[in-house]
């Protein structure tokens, strides 16, 4: 008797949990899992809302992070339908594992800017100014696209800089520069646009700048390929392109 009751007590939460999870499945919503580079956060969230409005019963779920993290998640079998990377290299990693349904499409571009605290108190005007060793300059690990692009820019400009920290992703650079904890970083132009005056951007001459290309692709294991194609089509439509360009992205 006691045994049976204890058994019931233990099983009740499990049953409840199962009930809860299956509950969300029985409703007729389809979830589209979009894994996107953190620099795409704002335009993608807006595009997701517009897409949900046009497709009742569809829930667009974002997983935003460093492209390198997301590529690893996809490789490890995470339930992604779409992967949008901030560089070709991380998309290549996923493609080389045969995880893409079709070849990726470049849907947006970006370029780099030096980001400094609002008002530019240290009067940083050029890449050369970043070589001042008193300055707190932060970047990301070289596997994260922005970290590798930053290294490329320094190489092109022929300067060497010892960063004070290798942050997780571009958002973390923005947080610390906007908060005044770090003096400068190199980020995407779109990040400076998204910060909406909370930071200042300093131009990097085109000779030293890079063109960041954003590829997007449908994951081969996706159960919602049709829907995924629809979302990508939306990004490529005039409405989608308007959202991207409003947020500082270049279009091809």
């Amino acid at each position, binding site marked *: 008797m006691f045994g049976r009751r204890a058994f019931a007590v*233990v099983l009740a939460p499990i049953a409840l949990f199962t009930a809860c999870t299956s509950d969300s499945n029985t409703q007729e919503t389809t979830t589209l899992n979009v894994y996107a580079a953190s620099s795409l956060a704002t335009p993608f969230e807006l595009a997701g809302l517009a897409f949900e409005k046009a497709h009742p019963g569809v829930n667009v779920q974002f997983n935003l992070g460093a492209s390198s993290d997301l590529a690893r998640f996809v490789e490890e079998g995470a339930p992604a339908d779409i992967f949008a990377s901030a560089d070709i290299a991380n998309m290549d990693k996923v493609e080389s594992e045969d995880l893409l349904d079709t070849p990726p499409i470049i849907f947006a571009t970006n370029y780099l800017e030096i980001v400094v605290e609002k008002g530019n108190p240290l009067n940083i005007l050029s890449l050369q100014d970043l070589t001042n060793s008193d300055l707190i300059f932060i970047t990301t690990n070289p596997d994260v696209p922005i970290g590798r692009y930053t290294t490329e820019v320094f190489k092109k400009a022929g300067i060497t800089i010892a960063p004070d920290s290798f942050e*997780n992703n571009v958002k973390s650079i923005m947080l*610390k520069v906007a908060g005044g904890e770090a003096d400068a970083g190199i980020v995407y132009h779109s990040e400076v646009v998204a910060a909406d005056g909370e930071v200042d951007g300093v131009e990097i001459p085109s000779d030293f700048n890079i063109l960041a290309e954003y590829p997007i692709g449908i994951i081969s294991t996706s159960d919602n390929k049709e829907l995924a194609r629809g979302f990508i089509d939306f990004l490529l439509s005039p409405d989608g392109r308007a959202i991207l360009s409003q947020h500082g992205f270049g279009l091809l």
Partner: protein
Amino acid sequence: MSQVRRHRQKLPWQIILIASIAVAFFLSPFIGLLWRTPWSKFTDIVTRREIRDALWLSVQTSLITSIVCFVFGVPLAWLLARVDFRGRRFIRALMTLSMVLPPVIGGIALLFTFGRRGLIGQYLDSWFGIRLPFTTTAVVMAQCFVAMPFLVLTVEAALRQLDTRFEDVARTLGGSRWYVFRRVTLPSIKPSLFAGLVLAWARALGEFGATITFAGNLPGTTQTMPLATYAALDSNPESALILSLLMIAIAFSILIALRDRWLGRTEQGLPL
């Protein structure tokens, strides 16, 4: 002991089955890790400079954190256990809060408080020229923030269960308050003190979220083992595996070394 055995015989198989699932859940990730570990590259990776730096930094900072936790945590635990004052429950809740809070949030909070533009940090900077973010000191602060509550709550529980008559006797025999605290109180709670210290130290060693948020991630200065592991995941997954294994080995060997004190206390029913 015989009582324990009788209970064991009566246990329904269902409970045993479910408990076994729980054990398998905890055990299988370690096996998975061992399974993927590239053993042939072990010595090659462990002797790399960035790994040695991270290991050394982790050992240093977690030990300093343990000392700081001891120095500040024990008096706080004593206060919470022995003195009935307004706000005692608040402080206890505060300790629990920082224990259950996601460490990243703790890191953001530290950044906005002790950062260069932070509530306190701005004065540290303008009056003393002290800047904490991106320094090893910040690593220790982040670790203390997440680890100290483990020591405080463990020691507090022990102090509350302690029979105060020993201390009273020591006082009547002429011991000063400080002397009694050092020679009677502290020795009587030694097992819990050790347990609390080990818990705090282990928590500090594994600290990731608060560290990377508040202290940043720079090899040799703020890149501790967990940060190095995370950084290696992309560029060099094999290093990441070896590093994980190394951390497990360190934590495990310390727990084994202290197991007598550890187990000695849990059997008496102290919360751990």
